[in-house]
């Protein structure tokens, strides 16, 4: 876990360095901040981030899986001329099975999530911005046994993401978002285990790069 945090931190500084390099290459001076959303502006946002998943609750993810890292991609665009954004989201959550007795004999689980999201973009300042999004999508836990036999647990995922970002210029920024995510799975299991395998809760502490175009 500490190793993953180290990797994520290292990547964060790499992204920051890359961003600063781009700022240095920027020739045009920044427009003075209007502190207002420009209503006639159409724009898109591409986000790539890494997150450290933290599972909680009495479910298979918290009691058996050890989250490593999650890669996240989002593509958003504002709707009409409003600060409302809609988009698509793709993420892969890499986990390992640390409790075979409770979960069954598999060692790796990659949870792939594809979904749509909608949100509200707050332009209180041009450098610091807030984005609140909620999403729903299909999730598939693709599991591998030690003999490399594959099977999956499938369902629906919903999530809520408050995001704060810092933009070096109009195009490029860094963001941080603590995502609250709940997966509803259709895994059949006897008795009390139906609930245990039926859902998973996570807090994803995500940070990454954000490009407006």
């Amino acid at each position, binding site marked *: 876990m500490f190793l993953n945090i180290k990797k994520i931190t290292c990547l964060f500084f790499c992204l920051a360095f890359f961003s600063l390099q781009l700022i240095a290459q920027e020739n045009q001076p920044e427009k003075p901040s209007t502190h207002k959303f420009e209503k006639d502006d159409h724009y898109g946002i591409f986000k790539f981030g890494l997150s450290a998943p933290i599972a909680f609750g009495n479910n298979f993810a918290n009691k058996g899986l050890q989250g490593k890292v999650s890669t996240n991609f989002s593509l958003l665009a504002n709707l009409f001329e409003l600060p409302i954004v809609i988009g698509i989201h793709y993420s892969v959550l890499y986990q390992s099975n640390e409790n075979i007795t409770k979960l069954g*004999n598999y060692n790796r689980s990659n949870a792939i999530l594809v979904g749509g999201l909608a949100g509200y973009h707050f332009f209180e300042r041009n450098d610091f911005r807030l984005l609140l999004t909620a999403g729903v999508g299909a999730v598939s836990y693709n599991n591998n046994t030690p003999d490399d036999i594959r099977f999956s647990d499938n369902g629906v995922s919903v999530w809520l993401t408050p995001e704060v970002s810092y933009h070096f210029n109009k195009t490029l920024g860094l963001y941080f978002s603590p995502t609250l995510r709940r997966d509803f799975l259709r895994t059949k299991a*006897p008795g009390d285990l139906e609930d245990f395998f039926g859902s998973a809760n996570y807090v994803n502490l995500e940070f990454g790069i954000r490009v407006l175009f």
Partner: protein
Amino acid sequence: MKLKFLSVFLCLIFFSFYSCEEINIESDKRVTVSGRLIDSQGKPISNIPINTEVESYRLGEGITDENGNFLFTSLQSESNDFLIYINKENIGPSTFSLDKANYSAATILNFQEDDILNVDQYTLGTIILPEKALLDFTIQKTSAEDLELTWSLSLFMANCQYSYKNNIVKIEGSCPQGFEKGNILSNENPNFSQTFTTLKNKTVMFTYSLGNSASQSINIPITDQLNTYVFEY
């Protein structure tokens, strides 16, 4: 040359795909396996491993607690060849040394047949796991006479087999009935020695005949974990 290389390459690809023909694990499904292990005196047995397998692929595993209870989650295969092994480490060839788990093994076969995918829990109840024992068995020729010895050994297996269909039932002929080992010894091959695994507090029946004489039987009591019997003729 290129054609030959290409054909070998295509064969390799074909066999690599063919070898990937593995079992199918059912998605969106878990089953549980639970029960209790006791010894022949009714005492709970702890630290005994239990696991589920289909075609040698392990799908789940657990271990008994201090009260002999076990409960674990297993994956489910679409194959109906679903086996539950108790103390599988102790299943194997008839010769091996005693380890810390001095108990016999058991294999439970699923007899749900076509209905196997509808099983979501295997409630095995209380299973008696007898103690295993070793018999170091030796036949030595001490006589100078030209004799032929025909012999057989009938002993209890240390791996009982059960069938499962709502509850477990012992399969006739597996345990406590045993298997027989026999041989004919002559001047060319006069001696025999082997260590057999069997059950403690049972007897092993040794039957022999010398030449054309009538056969005789000797019951060898298995009282200890390691037993020795030497027959001289």
